[in-house]
């Protein structure tokens, strides 16, 4: 990790890990290509472009075309990483994601950058809080929301070796390193980040570090909270979720996304059928978010350590789910 990557002491922008891993993979394998929609700086792929210009395609501001180009590159034997702001990459090209990637099972890796509310000040057009709901319903599409730079790298390495379509949802909000250097990404596995017996917090992406903080605060109150990192959104770890429902008294899900159709929805679908459990689903409650910095918006929607702590206490005290 370069010195420039350090956002604040101990915090990292996962895009630096993304860009460094992309370059390392491309240096080792001539099949690795990058496709962007003019998003050269926001993907941090300038270095990739200068080192591998013949394998860097900028289709311009044209997301439907971009995803199709990825499908064609894969059909020609390349391993394309198709990168752009998640809000446009998914919404604008959703039919291409469904048909050209999921249905056709093309070996394309979609990398949705600046997801969630990373572009907070730019308003709802640039927020990407629907992408989890949209992508996780596409058959054959693996959806990954890494928590830190280590998992970003591990997920990219896994995606390179896996033959099939993948959606990698990346933020730009600074996060601490949470996973050990030798961590290996496993699809369909929720990673236990902290053991606990009273309540379980399921989170992914930039909210896992906040869930861990909340668990620490809960511990100070004498509440033992388990924290699961559901970075693998699709497939999701059914067993770990059912086990948590059986072994703890309730589940709080936390996502930087709409509460409809995303992580909370996925957990609720499993538990409704397998082990009905009291839940709190934290996220964006079916509204377009106002403008404001990402940190402001996370606070606005209670997606902070304090907000998660409050929800956990309310759930344990029997306050109705909401």
């Amino acid at each position, binding site marked *: 990790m370069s010195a420039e990557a350090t956002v604040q002491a101990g915090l990292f922008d996962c895009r630096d890990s993304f860009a460094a891993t992309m370059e390392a993979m491309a240096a080792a394998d*001539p099949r690795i290509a990058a496709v962007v929609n003019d998003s050269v700086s926001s993907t941090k792929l300038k270095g990739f472009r200068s080192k591998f210009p013949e394998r860097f395609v900028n289709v*311009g501001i044209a997301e439907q*075309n971009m995803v*199709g180009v*990825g499908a*064609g*590159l894969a*059909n020609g*034997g390349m391993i394309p990483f198709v990168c752009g702001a998640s809000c446009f990459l998914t919404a604008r090209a959703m039919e291409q994601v469904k048909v050209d990637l999921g249905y056709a099972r093309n070996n394309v890796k979609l990398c949705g950058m600046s997801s969630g509310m990373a572009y907070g000040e730019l308003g709802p057009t640039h927020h990407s809080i629907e992408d989890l709901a949209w992508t996780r319903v596409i058959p054959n599409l693996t959806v990954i929301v890494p928590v830190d730079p280590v998992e970003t790298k591990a997920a990219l390495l896994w995606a390179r070796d896996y033959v099939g379509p993948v959606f990698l949802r990346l933020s730009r909000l600074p996060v601490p390193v949470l996973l050990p250097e030798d961590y290996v990404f496993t699809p369909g596995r929720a990673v236990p980040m902290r053991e606990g017996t009273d309540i379980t917090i399921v989170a992914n992406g930039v909210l896992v570090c906040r869930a861990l903080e909340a668990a620490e605060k809960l511990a100070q109150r004498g509440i033992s909270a388990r924290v699961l990192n559901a970075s693998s959104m699709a497939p999701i770890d059914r067993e770990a979720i059912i086990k948590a429902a059986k072994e703890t008294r309730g589940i709080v899900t936390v996502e930087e996304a709409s509460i409809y159709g995303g992580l909370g929805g996925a957990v609720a679908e499993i538990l409704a059928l397998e082990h009905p459990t009291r839940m709190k689903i934290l996220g964006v409650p079916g509204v377009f978010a106002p403008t404001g910095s990402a940190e402001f918006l996370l606070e606005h929607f209670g997606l902070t350590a304090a907000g998660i702590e409050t929800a956990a206490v309310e759930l344990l005290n029997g306050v109705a789910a909401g």
Partner: protein
Amino acid sequence: MSAKSSEQKEYLQQAAAEVRMRSLEMVHHAKVGHPGGDLSSTDVLVTLYLSVMRLDPANPGWPDRDRFIMSKGHCSGAFYATLAKAGFIPSSLLDTYMDPLSKLNGHPDRNKVPGVEANTGPLGHGMPIAVGNALAARMKGAAWRTFVLTGDGELQEGSNWEAAMTAANYNLDNLVLIVDRNRIQQGDFTEKTIRMDPLREKWEAFGWAVAEVNGHDIAELQSVLGSAPLQPGKPTCVIANTIKGRGVSFMENKPEWHHGVPTAAQLEQACTELLGVAR
């Protein structure tokens, strides 16, 4: 014309007649389909699969194969019948067209049907995929070419023009687009819906080398498709002027045969017109 090329021309024309008849039988069997477009695109499909493209039906995933993307996936009848004629799928499979659980969906699935490169159906998907295929050949230093067939009404989808810009920008002279210019879309004639003319000038303005051909003249198609690129450094657009419903008198140039299912009696007549024999 040499004896050999005359013989080949006769073979291809006979193959096209058989593909036309077979696709009509398939639509009749399935009770649904797009016979008008099947018949307008048949000569292009037959020329590509039986004469122009480098393919190995015994090894459909051969890495050095030429790629063909059937962007107008609704004309799967003619496409499947051509794949059978070329040896990619058994002819008997055509009898299951759109049956429950058949491999032959109404729109092609590359994971079910050998020889299919892209899952198409929704319009405007083929061009970007073809651009990606052509870019892959460039990146790999490979000699194979990519062909893509779109409808003319299909060009109303904006994704085609995004891809057109990319292809020209990257000087993809290993890419050949064929437009099935039959001038009819689902609801009406294209020029009465959203007019496409002047089509040649549009492609030229987007930086492509353009040829206009009679899309039913197999020799002309062989010549232009076989010799592409028309200009080094430019992608090639072949505007194939065709007749929707070509070869069956009561279907020709009739918007209502975009969709439509021929009756048994109509199949009889089509057979006489196409093959010169009673069914």
